[in-house]
């Protein structure tokens, strides 16, 4: 039996995820820099900061449950991608002593359709292909490509320019980083506003400086 204490009352037998007042004003804690294109149909929950020139497609989900998410510039987050900063499985949400960890995502990354990323630290110029799965303990450096349907779950730092591919998730190192998607980003920033409403940007807030 689950017991939750919420807003002075005790609820027996139900989960309460998130806080009701934040859900009512979804955009209030999402800081979207000027120049970013974030569609209204995307779901952004929690403390999320999105940098300039980032494109977030409709039906993308960015959920900051267990801590804030900071997304850099020039990223491309496609439909049904899920970027989630969630609690590790064996820790209860209200347990004490759990500090919220910030998820930091660098610049020029591509999150293709349907991927799931829980990695806490992602560098620059990575490509996370469709339906791939990144665990929470993975740290992606720069220039990595995680292939379609590949799962990277171990606790490790993936070296630069690594390609993970194949049904057995074999790896190789490529000689240069993947091509940047500037053409695609420019095209989307022109076309998406013609067909979708965009979330309001907060003027004057640049992305916080990353260490």
């Amino acid at each position, binding site marked *: 039996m689950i017991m939750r204490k919420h807003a002075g009352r005790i609820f027996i037998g139900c989960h309460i995820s998130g806080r009701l007042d934040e859900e009512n004003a979804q955009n209030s804690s999402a800081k979207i820099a000027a120049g970013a294109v974030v569609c209204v149909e995307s779901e952004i929950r929690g403390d999320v900061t999105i940098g300039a020139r980032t494109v977030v497609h409709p039906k993308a989900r960015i959920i900051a449950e267990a801590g804030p998410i900071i997304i850099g510039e020039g990223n491309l987050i496609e439909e049904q991608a899920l970027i989630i900063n969630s609690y590790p499985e064996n820790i209860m949400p209200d347990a004490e002593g759990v500090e919220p960890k910030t998820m930091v995502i660098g610049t020029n990354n591509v999150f293709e359709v349907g991927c799931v990323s829980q990695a806490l630290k992602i560098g620059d110029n990575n490509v996370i292909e469709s339906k791939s799965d990144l665990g929470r303990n993975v740290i992606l450096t720069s220039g990595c490509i995680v*292939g379609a349907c590949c799962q990277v779950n171990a606790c490790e730092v993936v070296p630069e320019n690594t*390609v993970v*591919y*194949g049904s057995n998730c074999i*790896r*190789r190192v*490529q*000689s240069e980083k993947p091509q940047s998607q500037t053409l695609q980003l420019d095209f989307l920033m022109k076309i998406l506003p013609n067909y979708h409403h965009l979330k309001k940007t907060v003027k004057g807030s640049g992305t916080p400086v990353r260490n």
Partner: protein
Amino acid sequence: MASLLQPDRVVYLVRGEKKIRAPLSQLYFCRYCSELRSLECVSHEVDSHYCPSCLENMPSAEAKLKKNRCANCFDCPCCMHTLSTRATNIPAPLPDDPTKTAMKKAYYLACGFCRWTSRDVGMADKSVASGGWQEPENPHTQRINKLIEYYQQLAHREKQDRDRKKMARRRQCMPLAFSQHTIHVVEKYGLGTRLQRQRPGAPISSLSGLSLKEGEEQKDITIEPAPALDEVEPLPEDCYSRPISLPEVTTLRQRLLQPDFQPAGASQLHPRHKHLLMKRSLRCRKCEHNLSKPEFNPTSIKFKIQLVAVSYIPEVRIMSIPNLRNMKESQVLLTLTNPVENITHVTLAPCEDDDPDDINSTAKVVVPGKQLVLAGKDAAAEYDELAEPQDFQDDPDVVAFRKSNKIGFFIKVIPQKEEDADVTVSFKIRHDFRNLAAPVRPSEEGGAAAAPAPAESIWLTHHVELRLGPLAP
């Protein structure tokens, strides 16, 4: 219960040189011999060569010249996927005016799956989209060519010797004229055609491409034997202590796909031209008729001749299996489908006690003794609303249901083995087959153009084995 429809649950026995049990979907039916044929009792012949990615047709002679590889397409040396050509714009000085730079296109090869590019091994970008890529030259090509020429000449000379001996000793038995070595050498270069196989004692004259033409002189080619070296290069000193960088080492598969070089380092993996695939035609060994002949065009998947077993022989499929218990009788529901357009009569019979084909069965089976009648396959039946359903008097104990050309019927199975992991039953199925391809027989009176004999029905018997799965716990 999709597992009941797996093809290897119901197998038919093929009585050829070897007794083969295979599902009906993998068998062919020679309607001239009126027998089932499997892939092992037919001869395979190459019809045409084509490239799987650009679908370009190639005649066999040209294919042999190019070592069975396509001229335009490349394989990724890392993951064996097809490489695609990508273009980038690079600034290059104009030939007229060195100070101005114009954007020129440079092409490189890239793999979409593992992201390998031709720049990884140091191949420079080419300025033409196709035709600029060269495979590295094999350093041993000359020696190999010389060896091949020498062996060709040797085979030819030995063949001539054999022919001469055969003319001289006509009455003596042939095997003496052949030395083990001769057969071995000639068969090495033999093409494996049916001509060669059919006359095992005859001299092989169809070594096309390997035998010298009659007018050519016999050049005496001598080769030096390979020199044996006393000293071998020593291993590098840090061979055991140097840490291995795994991304740099090639896998065994990548290495063996390039038998010329077998590079150990990933930076020496060059792309190779793509292997050609071939279309093959199958021929019955007894009557020399074609069983399967595909179309010549690589883009077409149809067949000119397609004598597959499923379009001639009624197919048995398992529909439902109850819990099977040791030594207890259970009813299994099977379906029988009629592939031909005329009515087929099917009789089932259990295997005799001393049947030599019955080696796998682990249960007794009681099959319905009556003859089952299957309606013909009518392609227009679903659109024809006015057609009256044909009235077959079906015994409800035997026939569970009937639907156009399919019936469901019961058999009784009594498992005999305790703790059987796979209960197997077998029985014989006997059906009538109307042979429309029967050759025209001249009438016995010796008249001129006789009318084609009416297609007569013959009765065919097949041995069928079913695998019903484990006993219920």
